[in-house]
């Protein structure tokens, strides 16, 4: 029993970090209607940004996380302005495809640039706090605990921001209807830029928090990106709350899946497949995701 409690807690912690990454992806999707296929590399850049801030600028680890988020916010803003911008004009005929291609191109670009710039060898920033919390049979390392708590704080801050600040409400308005938002004086284009920047910052935060837990490598974002896709589909593509629930759900399902899978030899080999299958079935049953707003689709 302890064993499954441990699996569930581990899943919960990992799920919260997934949720942080997915929340950024969701924010971008809900406002821009774009799936950011480059999200995994933004996560990777966040991890490295924090690493370099800690090791070369000598800032304490929590400040490294914040600096990484600020840096990637700026990066997101610039990318959105330079590359995604034409999407909102009539110059781009097929917006979905345009977005997939340019964000995917970003992945190819940054992953390989990462190898050139950061080098091929793994790096790891110092831990936030060494050691582990041991409560009876439960063991959880401080790094994971801190990452989970930081994820909760960031996710709460995001929810508060979206619900209580005027900028957040403007983002929400644009996500619901660009036209109506424009009518009440919100400039949707500005909101697109803000949303992409914030989404990038959240990915960076996730990367920076995970860096001391797992190591840094240029391709570290590949798997979490796929996980984040799964989560936002589970969470209904565009609902921040849904992506939090989806993240935790995925973390726990994967953890318990490995624990329960009958053939231990294959259990780990198929861990990723559990999530992918979850995505496939969710989309088949509900083409707009598990917790998606019911759409009065006309076709």
């Amino acid at each position, binding site marked *: 029993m302890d064993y499954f409690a441990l699996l569930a807690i581990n899943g919960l912690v990992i799920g919260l970090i997934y949720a942080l990454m997915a929340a950024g992806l969701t924010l971008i999707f809900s406002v821009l209607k774009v799936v950011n296929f480059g999200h995994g590399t933004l996560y990777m850049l966040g991890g490295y940004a924090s690493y370099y801030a800690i090791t070369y600028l000598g800032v304490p680890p929590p400040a490294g996380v914040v600096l990484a988020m600020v840096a990637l916010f700026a990066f997101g803003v610039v990318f959105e302005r330079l590359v995604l911008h034409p999407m909102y004009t009539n110059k781009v*005929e097929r917006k979905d495809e345009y977005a997939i291609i340019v964000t995917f191109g970003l992945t190819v670009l940054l992953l390989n640039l990462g190898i050139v710039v950061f080098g091929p060898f793994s790096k790891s920033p110092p831990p936030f706090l060494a050691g582990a919390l041991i409560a009876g049979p439960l063991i959880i390392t401080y790094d994971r605990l801190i990452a989970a708590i930081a994820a909760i704080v960031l996710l709460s801050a995001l929810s508060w921001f979206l619900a209580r600040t005027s900028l957040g409400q403007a983002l929400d308005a644009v996500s619901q209807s660009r036209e109506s938002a424009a009518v009440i004086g919100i400039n949707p284009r500005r909101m697109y830029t803000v949303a992409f920047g914030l989404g990038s910052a959240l990915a960076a935060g996730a990367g920076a928090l995970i860096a001391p837990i797992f190591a840094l490598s240029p391709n570290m974002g590949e798997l979490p990106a796929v996980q984040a896709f799964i989560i936002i589909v589970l969470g209904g593509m565009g609902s921040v709350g849904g992506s939090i629930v989806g993240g935790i759900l995925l973390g726990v399902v994967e953890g318990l899946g490995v624990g329960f899978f009958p053939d231990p030899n294959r259990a780990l080999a198929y861990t990723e497949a559990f999530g992918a299958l979850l995505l496939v079935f969710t989309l088949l049953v509900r083409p707009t995701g598990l917790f998606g707003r*019911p759409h*009065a689709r*006309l*076709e």
Partner: protein
Amino acid sequence: MDEAEFFAADGLSKHFGGIIAVDGLSISLSRGELVGLIGPNGSGKTTTINMVAGALRPDEGTIRLRGVTMTGSPAHVFARGGVARTFQVPRLFRRMTVLENLIVPALSNPAARRAEAERRAGEVLSFLRLEHLTRSLARALSGGQQKLLELGRALMLRPSLLLLDEPFAGVHPQLLAQIMEHIGSLNAGGHTIIVVDHNIDAIRSLVRRTVVMAQGRKIADGPSEDVLRDPAVIRAYTGARDAH
């Protein structure tokens, strides 16, 4: 087959989540009728058109065309069965030419030949006075021209029932007269037509029979002059307006 039973929708209902969009609506048309369907925003007009065109499957109720039950068939079966439609905002094949837009519906009939389809497209274009645009891209057309082209595309199906969803919305007054004239002549030529619109004046001068919907239900159905004087209709409209 009874003439009055040319087209019959019986007890149509449609829910979206918890919202009831259409609630037990029945309409029947006889051949060659021209009917207006009006109602305040959100009264379920477009949902009705979508069900009659086969784009939405009703939760309850049946749709019969010339005695054949169509309910549950996919939209393209409705289209080939003679139900043609236009959309509120024109939905053209934007990156295809005007000519190509028109021959798509014609060629959806497997027996049709391309040369024949192009000849008919030419006829439709001259009827709509769009011949000069034959080779233009659809997306290059003005808003009014797009409305006309969409009408033409519907005509290419040789429809026995034509569903026009807000043909007058956002149209220049001069073009409005032209569209009304086209609808009139199509009806005179034997087409059965349902026109959905907000423009009560246009509807009043165009159609003899009007159906009024409010909150998903039919609240009036009869000669236009009577219906538009009906206090229930006026209340539904003004009430809705006030609430706006």
